[in-house]
């Protein structure tokens, strides 16, 4: 079970995805933690209300980025806030291993509720025959009523009426909660924790008050803001991270009606913990930076050519490298080469190499530079030459760094990020290096 999040702080707080993140990059980050090196899921279900691209699914790219084989199905099931619960239902019904990734960005016009009460985040869950948590039951109610919506191309969602919306939602949520407890002959006292997720903070509070089950863990996520499709995921992941074996958890989400789910943990829940704090390394950003990052304001860029879309045929030929960050390792002399080389640069052997997954290997900065003219979504570009543990060198962008604080010998790890968006809308993603957070 896992979640990934960053915060900023201020009088009120919300999480803000970096300029080089979007729903797919954040989803990848959460999934890498959840998978813990197991690349076998046969299906991937990705839910977001802010897909970076339409028609082409993001899940298919994400599965390649996660290093998974092509022999599996990866599906985008997002678009609405309720999709996340739907993804969990789908995955739990699969016979083979599956992966659910919930990831979202919530923002709106300056000063809007979506901006103030929204947040960006992601979570991921693996499903298998031997789970750490079992779904005991699901009860759902569905409502066609137009309480909250966003039309394609709009920035920020709208609600019909705040109080009416929250009242409707709370009513549905309490209803499914009561139904699921009655159906399973359970009372509130049987549950160690309640996870409540709704775009309306008022509705969530009503439900917590009515059910009188501790939702303290779930509420700790309130500081991040409402995370859209990822909201349920992050609250649930944090709750499970802090659960003991043999506990029952009640999960209620409110959107298009309401869904309720009863979960029960077993001993495996201990080894499924990821050991991350709720709030890790964080940095405060100012409103101008936030507006630029979310493209609500655009800024003059340097006179450099527009970024080009990666050529699809070239990316296709280089799939393992382009998405999964597989380098080549010469089977004759052991030299690692990034990008992969057919002719070994050290011993000259031709076609004597095997793929080596480099994305999880840590590295050390050998040297770096700051380019103040190159095109960047967040100038200046900081580029490092990094040496991987066990061999291999690569030159890449550094992210999550303050340019004048970077030092030679800093330790870094690879993350999948947005490099640029071409004028034709194609997003170019690749791997960047970021400083490893020191474990306190």
């Amino acid at each position, binding site marked *: 079970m896992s979640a990934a999040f960053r915060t900023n702080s201020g009088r009120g707080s919300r999480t803000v995805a970096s300029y080089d993140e979007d729903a797919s990059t954040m989803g990848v980050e959460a999934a890498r933690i959840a998978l813990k090196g197991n690349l076998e899921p046969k299906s991937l279900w990705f839910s977001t209300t802010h897909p970076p691209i339409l028609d082409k699914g993001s899940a298919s790219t994400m599965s390649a980025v996660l290093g998974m084989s092509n022999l599996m199905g990866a599906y985008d099931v997002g678009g609405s806030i309720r999709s996340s619960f739907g993804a969990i239902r789908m995955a739990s019904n699969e016979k083979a291993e599956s992966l659910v990734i919930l990831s979202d960005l919530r923002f709106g016009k300056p000063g809007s509720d979506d901006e103030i009460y929204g947040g960006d985040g992601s979570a991921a869950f693996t499903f298998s025959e031997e789970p750490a948590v079992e779904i005991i039951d699901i009860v759902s109610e569905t409502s066609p009523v137009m309480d909250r919506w966003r039309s394609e191309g709009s920035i920020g969602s709208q609600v019909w009426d705040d109080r009416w919306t929250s009242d409707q939602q709370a009513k549905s949520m309490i209803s499914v909660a009561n139904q699921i407890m009655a159906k399973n002959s359970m009372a509130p006292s049987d549950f160690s924790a309640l996870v409540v997720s709704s775009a309306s903070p008022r509705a969530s509070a009503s439900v917590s008050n009515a059910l009188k089950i501790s939702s303290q863990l779930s509420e700790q996520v309130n500081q991040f803001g409402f995370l859209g499709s990822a909201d349920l995921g992050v609250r649930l992941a944090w709750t499970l991270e802090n659960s003991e074996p043999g506990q029952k958890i009640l999960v209620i989400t409110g959107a298009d009606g309401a869904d309720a789910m009863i979960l029960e943990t077993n001993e495996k829940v201990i080894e499924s913990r990821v050991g991350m704090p709720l709030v890790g390394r964080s940095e405060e950003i100012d409103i101008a930076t936030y507006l630029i990052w979310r493209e609500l304001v655009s800024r003059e860029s340097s006179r450099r050519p527009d970024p080009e879309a990666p*050529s699809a045929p*070239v990316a296709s030929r280089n799939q393992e490298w382009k998405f999964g960050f597989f380098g080549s390792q010469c089977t004759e002399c052991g030299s690692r080469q990034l990008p992969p080389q057919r002719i070994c640069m050290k011993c000259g052997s031709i076609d004597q190499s095997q793929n080596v997954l480099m994305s999880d290997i840590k590295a050390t900065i050998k040297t770096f530079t700051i380019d103040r003219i190159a095109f960047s979504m967040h100038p200046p570009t900081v580029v490092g*030459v990094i040496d991987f543990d066990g061999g291999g060198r690569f030159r890449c962008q550094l992210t999550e760094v303050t340019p004048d604080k970077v030092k030679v010998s800093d330790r870094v790890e690879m993350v999948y990020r947005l490099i640029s968006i071409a004028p034709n809308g194609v997003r170019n993603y690749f791997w960047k290096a970021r400083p490893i957070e020191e474990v306190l």
Partner: protein
Amino acid sequence: MGCTKFGDHWDKSADDLVIDAVKELSESSGVLASNVDAFWLGTAVTGQSGLVLSKPLKLLNKPVTRVENMCATGSEAVRNACYAVASGAYDLVMAVGVEKLKDSNMTGLVVPSSPTDGTSVDLTAPAMFSFLVPAYMKKFGVSSEEMRSALSHIASKNHSNGAKNIRAHFQREVSAETISKSPRIAGDLNVFDCSGISDGAAAALICRAEDAHKYTDKPMYVRALSLAVGTGTGSFDPDYDYTTFPEVVSCAKVAYEQARITDPATQISMAEVHDCFTPTELVLMEDLGFSERGSGWRDVLSGRFDSDGQLPVNPDGGLKSFGHPIGASGLRMLFEMWLQFRGEAGARQILNPKFGLTHNLGGQPGEVVSFISLVSNDPE
């Protein structure tokens, strides 16, 4: 030889520059283009095929080859032209280099490229070469003040040389202090550590040594030609340390062997080297054998490579102040050697030069093509 002024030639097209360079060449040599057997045109980004030369000059069905080898393009044109006459295939050939960079609205050099998978970092040239600075400082224990002084000295020297050159793009002296304080562009490099973007053209008439007397009584002889193209793996080879250009070292060895030079530090009288950025020139002093490894910065500061030093480097202002129209640069370097050997370098004149060296490199640290020529007024 002929060479246009380099600069922001808003009022001149590539065709104009080519015509100007060849016109000057024809006037000084008395040879018309129509009497030349074959042509080599060097241009990196200003057009494709031999038509780039034949169209403006109205060459009728002559053999015209366009060559490109990044920033060594102009030199590549000369190299091929030399082999053409040496082989006996032709008797009289012309090498022309031209680049028109200022019609673009971009900052910095833009090199068109083929479709990619988007996985290479998009770096500007200054950033690529900025890696040389911390690597050199660390390996040889040079403090940042000392390094900054050495780099500024190089830029100031080249501007001072350019100030004496009517063809240079920038003809003003710039103090080392101004250079040190100019705005950062990439890494530790300031605006003045970087050569600019210029338009220009240059041309040379080339024949076999034994025929030179037909065209001039003061020919310049090519004593060595060397080209070394690396594997381009430096950026992902853990053994590359960014303090040298191995391709240049290898290229120099071949060139010195051809001309039987055993001690370049004392036997080379003057050199035009590829100072695209100040640390490039510094590293080249060591790669070319003009300084001991690790001591180049001291030699720079002692004035060894100044116009009045033991081994003047870039006496005409270099890429830095003369300018760098890519396809023309290699020929421009030979043009300075030409003037020097003929005693026509005016205020820049070096006394009794014996051997001149021209050097170009294209690419970036770790991925270089390097060219060297050795020239002399002595055929052997």
